[in-house]
């Protein structure tokens, strides 16, 4: 049902306010043909939204919502009227259910979307307090059957900036009212991709661990942190070693570089974990003026 509602913004559980005569009786309601639904038409920018409350024939609501993104079923913010029919129920949806809502913040030019689950009895208040937000999937929200939609009510999973270069983004599920604090940190990804937060190696050929150096012809033990139980290899500068990481993801490699160069330590996925420079301790200082 949740998927259906997500895919059909404006649809709702329960009987329709009206049914077209001669239509499919299985979807028919008990209300008169000319029943109207209150829709808040939202235009303008997020900072200066223009709202206009309209009443639509029920058979026009879906088309209207499709043609007017951001508009939603219900009273406009600031309007005293409410669409709540009774405590805990909106338009016939039972209490305890949740709706997936696209929370829209930011400026008109740089809109920020967050897919959030909101308890059904909070939907009207949420939409009123967040003009521009709407019931349904956010643009580019990805697979609704993935991690999105599995968060607790009122929470959203994002990739927060950790400040650690080795692991710069970490997933965290936060309350919707805490989002702004996270979004103030540039680089925050919202919502978290279903494939997980990007790692540094995913872009730019970066390593997850800082570069280090070791002298030639000296045996040293290199410990790297990677995914558990995977093969880790070290190649380059005359080194050709491999081992398997333990259950905690630690892998220890003994390397004895035979010549100057760079040893590249990779995880089984091909991801570069670390690069080690093999430098001669003694070198020419010919570039110094002396």
């Amino acid at each position: 049902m949740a998927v259906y509602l997500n895919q059909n913004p404006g649809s709702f559980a329960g009987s329709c306010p009206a049914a077209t005569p001669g239509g499919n009786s299985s979807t028919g309601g008990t209300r008169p043909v000319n029943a109207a639904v209150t829709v808040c038409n939202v235009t303008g920018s997020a900072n200066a939204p223009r709202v206009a409350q309209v009443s639509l024939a029920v058979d026009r609501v879906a088309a209207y919502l499709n043609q007017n993104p951001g508009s939603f079923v219900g009273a406009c913010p600031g309007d005293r009227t409410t669409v709540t029919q009774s405590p805990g129920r909106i338009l016939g949806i039972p209490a305890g259910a949740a709706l997936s809502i696209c929370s829209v913040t930011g400026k008109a030019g740089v809109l920020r979307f967050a897919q959030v689950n909101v308890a059904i009895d909070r939907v009207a208040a949420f939409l009123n307090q967040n003009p521009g937000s709407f019931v349904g999937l956010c643009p580019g929200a990805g697979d609704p059957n993935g991690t999105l939609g599995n968060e607790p009510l009122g929470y959203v999973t994002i990739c927060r900036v950790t400040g650690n270069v080795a692991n710069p983004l970490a997933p965290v599920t936060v309350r919707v009212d805490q989002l702004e604090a996270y979004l103030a940190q540039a680089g925050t990804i919202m919502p978290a991709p279903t494939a997980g937060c990007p790692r540094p190696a995913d872009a730019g050929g970066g390593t997850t661990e800082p570069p280090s150096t070791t002298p030639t012809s000296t045996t040293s033990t290199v410990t790297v942190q990677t995914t558990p139980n995977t093969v880790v290899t070290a190649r380059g500068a005359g080194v050709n070693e491999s081992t398997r990481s333990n259950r905690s993801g630690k892998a220890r490699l003994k390397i004895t570089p035979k010549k100057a160069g760079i040893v590249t330590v990779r995880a089984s996925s091909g991801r570069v974990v670390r690069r080690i420079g093999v430098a001669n301790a003694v070198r020419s200082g010919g570039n110094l003026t002396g």
Partner: protein
Amino acid sequence: MPDTRRFPSRSLHAGALVLAILATAAFWPADARAAETQEYPRAGLVMTRSVAAHARPASSSRTLMVFRQFRSDFRPTTLLVVGERRGAAGTRWLQISLPMRPNGRTGWVRAASVQTRRLTSSIVVDLSARRLHVLEHGRTRFSTRVAIGRPGLETPTGRFYVTATFKPKERFLGSHAFETSAYSKLSEWPGGGVVGLHGTTQPSLLGRRVSHGCVRMSNAAALVLKHLTPAGTPLTIVR
């Protein structure tokens, strides 16, 4: 007998300290000065294969220099980060000291490509007193007499940093050498004329203006510095 004496903190040449502070204000940009009061300068390591230094904190600005993760001698490239700023799109940029001519130039790199670490020590070379001081947490840890650039090839003043340390093949460079981001007036030199801190085979010349711009010290002092000042250590040269 090498001239390597350990000084208590109060014996730091007061003039050198004042000059170092004045030099900081004169050579570093305002942004860097503001940031320095918080946590900069810091040493940085390149985390990607290469990183471009831009004239401004924007990818569209001119590229001044490209740093590879490893230098040509396969030592990790070390940067000196002197400040940070947010770019137009909210991207974090780090202001770094550039090891290029003209001396004192700075550029901007993406923070995501650099891992920084806190610095505990710094080097101050007082050309007037012809002494080199190693400061740790603002207190003098070590001090020694040095030889500096001769007239016409004076050692440049300003804020620099140690880019690499190594045992030199050349005997006249002594027991240990430190490559810096400073460039001497001698431009027609292999490698561009990099100013170094190094030992010497002529300790009798220490305290004089005899070098091509490098700072020479006793071999014993150079070995002490090897342990106190790794690559990335800030270097302030004052007159």
